[in-house]
């Protein structure tokens, strides 16, 4: 099932290692097979209380009034937690690295912006008592129009989802409604392309569905601290977020975790810790807040939906000369991590290929649905789907084998990428070659001989050399070679005529760009160029 090709790149490796490279058994395996690995909920406390949350039944509504008197009197109820009880009831996850504005309450007080948004909490002696009390809470809503489509949300006059970002887009660098990528001149290149293909791709949201749902237990500790047993994927991320929302010095919190029943990105958002800590402090008792599976599936943040438009300009000889991408991340009602995913997505465009003219605009859009967050492959999974489907269509359009088409365009060491850094340590071509061999996917000799190393081997030499004169977005010329015999195979000659006279992009960022990234670096100091 798994084999190694140690022969490839052997000259770049020192394989004279003792422990690294060994199939050593997992340190935690014995605990796993004996059912003794300590997940957050495997810690026991006397007189444990349980927190359950009242959630909005509407995607967008104004809260007129909340009557929780009956719930407060219900059997087993120890405390009602209202928005007013939350010390700092507005936050955004990445405020920890000073990226974005606080835009999400822990408990909604005036308006609910997605179905399932938390409104009020009940702390009771059992989960059932808490659930029964929640059923007694009376909330009067004024339903508001909602928007669910990312492109509808950007139209003039669209419903405004999030008051902090009234135009329904995250704000980059204090002035832009999206993240840009500009490299070369796509319009000029499209004009010269033999084929121009444009298509639309859509990924629906995806749920992390970890075996263990999100949850945490907060225990009032001696000397006023709070110990928190948690399923978080990011211990200090959750600790610092909880400290901020509870207006506590971070050293008043002691977080214990590290053994988690799956995460896949769904346990970064710190969805349970802040309120369970508040509940423990307000009751002076240990409290557990555990998502039900239904909550996990519908109200715990998913991998957000993405809509991606791709326009490619391709030459008959197989070279992609231009790629334009317009993408919309459906962030749901609040930012969480989608703003970051957008930048990661832009960084990934145009994929692992050397394309001299690239243009991208990617938007983080707010809609009235469950806020999205990180998931395995964050910011890249949907883009890779779109790019690789598009690559297949490009190959078909010019009658070229889809794998050879990828190898031809694959980035090599020294190539200039669209974000203006030279490619290094590349290995896409080698991956393609070994798979072709294993799966008996026919590759012609010159493609079997190609390499990711400087120049890329064979006829790419000229190309790569051209490209390394960074930044050189113009379509590079290649060493001419005779067209292969096979009629439906296209020639790989690169006529100089194909070179697009596009303006070279600036090598430097505009002097003194003082927005966005500097806000990062004010925390982290040094910056890379």
């Amino acid at each position, binding site marked *: 099932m798994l084999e190694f090709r140690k022969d490839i790149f052997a000259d770049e490796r020192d394989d004279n290692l003792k422990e*690294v490279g060994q199939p050593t058994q997992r340190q935690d395996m014995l605990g796993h097979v004996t059912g003794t690995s300590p997940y957050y909920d495997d810690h026991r406390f006397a007189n444990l209380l349980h927190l359950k949350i009242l959630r909005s039944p509407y995607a967008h509504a104004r809260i007129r009034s909340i009557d929780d008197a009956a719930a407060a009197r219900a059997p087993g109820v120890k405390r009602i937690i209202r928005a007013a009880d939350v010390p700092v009831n507005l936050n955004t996850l990445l405020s920890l690295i000073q990226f974005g504005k606080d835009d999400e309450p822990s408990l909604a007080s005036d308006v609910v912006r997605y179905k399932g948004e938390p409104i009020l909490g009940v702390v009771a002696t059992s989960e059932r008592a808490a659930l029964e009390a929640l059923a007694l809470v009376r909330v009067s809503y004024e339903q508001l129009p909602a928007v669910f489509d990312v492109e509808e949300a950007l139209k003039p006059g669209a419903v405004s989802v999030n008051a902090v970002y009234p135009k329904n887009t995250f704000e980059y660098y204090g002035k832009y409604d999206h993240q840009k990528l500009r490299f070369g001149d796509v319009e000029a290149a499209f004009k010269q392309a033999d084929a121009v293909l444009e298509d639309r791709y859509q990924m629906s949201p995806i749920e992390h569905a970890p075996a263990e749902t999100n949850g945490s237990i907060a225990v009032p500790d001696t000397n006023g601290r709070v110990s928190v047993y948690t399923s978080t994927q990011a211990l200090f991320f959750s600790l610092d977020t909880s400290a901020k929302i509870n207006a506590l010095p971070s050293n008043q919190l002691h977080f214990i975790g590290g053994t988690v029943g799956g995460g896949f990105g769904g346990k970064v958002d710190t969805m349970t810790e802040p309120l369970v800590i508040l509940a423990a402090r307000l009751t002076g008792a240990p409290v557990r807040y555990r998502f039900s599976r239904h909550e996990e599936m519908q109200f715990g943040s998913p991998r957000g939906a993405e809509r991606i438009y791709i326009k490619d300009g391709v030459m008959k000889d197989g070279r992609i000369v231009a790629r334009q991408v317009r993408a919309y991340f459906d962030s749901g009602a609040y930012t969480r991590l989608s703003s970051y995913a957008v930048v990661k997505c832009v960084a990934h465009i145009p994929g692992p290929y050397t394309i001299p003219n690239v243009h991208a605009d990617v938007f983080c859009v707010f809609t009235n649905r469950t806020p999205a967050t990180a998931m395995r492959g964050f910011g890249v999974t949907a883009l890779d789907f779109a790019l690789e489907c598009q690559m297949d269509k490009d190959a078909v359009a010019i009658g070229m084998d889809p794998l050879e088409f990828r190898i031809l365009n694959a980035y090599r060491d020294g190539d200039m990428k669209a974000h203006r850094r030279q490619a290094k340590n590349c290995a896409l071509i080698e991956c393609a070659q070994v798979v072709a061999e294993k799966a008996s996917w026919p590759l012609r000799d010159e493609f079997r001989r190609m390499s990711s190393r400087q120049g890329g081997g064979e006829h790419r030499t000229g190309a790569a050399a051209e490209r390394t004169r960074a930044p050189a977005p113009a379509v590079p010329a290649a060493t001419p070679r005779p067209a292969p015999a096979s009629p439906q195979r296209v020639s790989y000659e690169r006529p100089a005529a194909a070179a697009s006279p596009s303006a070279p992009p600036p090598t430097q960022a505009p002097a003194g760009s003082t927005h966005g990234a500097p806000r990062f670096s004010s925390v982290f100091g040094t910056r890379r160029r």
Partner: protein
Amino acid sequence: MAKHRGRGVATINYPIGMNLGGDPSQALVHSNPTGKFTVTLSSIDLGQGMKSVTRQICAETLGVPVDDVYVDTADSDTGPHCMGSFASRGTHRVGNAVMAAAREARAVMMEAAAEELEVDPGDLETDGRGNIQVKGAPHRSISVRDVAIAAQFRQGKTISGRGIFLVPLSDVDPETGEMSPATCYAHACLVAEVEVDDETGEVAVLKMTSAYEIGRAINPKLVEQQLVGGSWMGMSHALYETPEPYYPNTRDGPRDFNEYLMPGPGDICPHDIIVLERPAPDGPFGAKGPGEMCANPVLPAVANAIYNAVGVRIDELPITPEKVLRALKARGGAPGSGRAR
């Protein structure tokens, strides 16, 4: 009824660690008085193997057997800061931090050994079996255990080390998108073979063949876990999953594991995986990170295989049988058979 087979391919790369960097991790390594080591982290093991990978990296760096190292994760009172377990950053970021801490601890260990053996630390080497010996004169050696006892009770040295790894934050040019997103990238190519039922639109994945280039496999079994489990998740993303089956309409959302669709043990297929290692200059022993990227090539490879089988392009995820059937009807059925490949 007609079933059509087809093959599709995808090639991808994946950035290691948080985009733009600026995501530090710290580690502490120390020896107890009898020469057994503890790595203290606040990092999380959510199944990916954080404890095991950092354990092997620490043992290799110290030059001691892996059994002599234990990794303790995620206690904010003892473990120093870690950004978290996401963005395929664990092996690369935390691994580097552990390496730095282990190097510092190793230096003290070698000094203490040198003092005991009355030689220069530079003349010593570890044998990886728990001993420190004079290069070229293995008979002149001392066990790590005795070194630790000597350091603690005679020399008053602490065999310990601190490590942090930070990829400095990159600026982003708002006008051009110029930036340094990542210091290294993993790579993959995957071929999927599918069978499509042209009367129902149902798709079965019959076989996957893939290659993943991950810099260095710190532990081949843990890499296999990620790649096998991750490709299953990719198949799941491609054909089954969503909490909003009628997106952008939010109705009929699944509430449980009967309604949330994922391939069961009866839906999986054979998968031949080849691992390549082109060491990342800044990776621990060259390691990158296989965790996140492994699902990504499956989605487009399956979509392209469906096209190869029945000639329809499904550009919306998940590729449900309904979408395939609607597309087939729109183009008036499937061609004679999948194109030979």
